[in-house]
């Protein structure tokens, strides 16, 4: 079980939660588990079968694009951060 941090702009899709627990050994499994429970997230997070380019996914503080992308391993108890850009100032 890992914890996924949900950014404020996606919280409406998960019933307002800031953190959601999900099961999976890789980022792909984890996001599949998340999106199976909150289907409206799929449109926000996935593009052409990959993580949408405007959302960064960090596992233990590292961008998965600099590791193995969706196949990046997620150890139980890890925190996964979903992070879209914010422009507000």
């Amino acid at each position: 079980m890992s914890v996924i941090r949900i950014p404020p702009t996606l919280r409406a899709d998960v019933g307002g939660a800031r953190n959601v627990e999900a099961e999976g050994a890789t980022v792909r499994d984890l996001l599949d588990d998340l999106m199976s429970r909150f289907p409206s997230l799929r449109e926000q997070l996935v593009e052409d079968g990959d993580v949408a380019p405007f959302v960064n996914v960090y596992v233990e503080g590292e961008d998965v694009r600099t590791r193995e992308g969706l196949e990046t391993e997620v150890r139980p108890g890890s925190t996964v951060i979903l992070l879209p850009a914010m422009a507000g100032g």
Partner: protein
Amino acid sequence: MATYRELLAQVKSEIDEVDAVRARELIETGDPVIVDIREQDEWDEGHIADAIHIPRGNLESRVETAAPDRSRTVLLYCAAGNRSAFAAKTLQELGYDEPLSLSGGFTDWKRNGFPVVLSAGLDASRRARYSRHLLIPEVGEAGQLKLLASKVLLIGAGGLGSPASLYLAAAGIGRLGIVDADVVDESNLQRQIVHSTERLGEPKVESAKRTIEALNPDVDVVAYQERLTSENVDRILADGWDVIVDGADNFPTRYLVNDASVWHDIPVVHGSIYRFEGQVTVLKPGDGPCYRCLFPTPPPPELAPSCAEGGVLGVLPGIVGSLQASEALKLALGIGEPLVGRLLLFDALTTEFNEVLIRRDPKCPVCGEHPTITEYVDYVEFCAGTREPA
């Protein structure tokens, strides 16, 4: 009971002295810490290059910060070599291996025709204003003079630009440029503390300029009452800026600031906010990722509501904008470890700071090895059309 002369003779017999010629050799061949223990007015009239100024009265309390390595030679001097003899004795007692007193002092040094540095000149009023900076070894007089010679450009005089501009002005940044086309609106005042109720309807850059000038007359404020665009960005950056503080409120400006900063080779202190959460990083061209490495494409509008649409806790830009000011000051001073390659995330609701690593993308279209974007694009279109099929 000993007289002053007897005490001086006693102390001089217990310490090591060097004359001006030997001291100069030592400075040229060795690596001594040079400490000038005279009073402020004496120091102002000239001193030995690279000397640290610690008035005799503060020697015990400050020398360990200035010279933490007790095995390093410390060359102490005053005007004639008497006060520095007592200072050398004190350093012996503090456990320094090799404190040396310059016999004949600064007077003899000058008589030998050796080089003297004139203090660039913090006058008494500036010394008083910046005294809390002068006490910090990492800033000191040299650092304060750097700040007074620094030029920082703020993009936006809004939530982030308000605290950032106030703290940078208070710190004595010599020139602050502010780019903003808007006027002060009632809905701004919940967080934009550089403005005030009596400024409603006034251009934000004029309002900010008045507040800053009232806070610190040392600061030269350059007001650009215009929206940053592909057409004016080169003209504004050509005015010469050491650091850009990005407090814009929209994606087109963020990407424009990024591309321009890469091409002009100016570091950007990036801050952004939404509701309770903020992001801060330093985008330093050539030394870390650019904004496009971090976020290759902007999110679609429904995933990126502005503060005007989604709201923001009033104090949040105070925290994030102050962090930006802190990073900008570090860059101007050349000290510490700026947030290069690190994205700092703040959540006010849980009071948590998190940090993620961000890396330069070798395939980045702007700062990568083979850039494909080499001139300004239509940023509004770029940010509007991200989900259109190619």
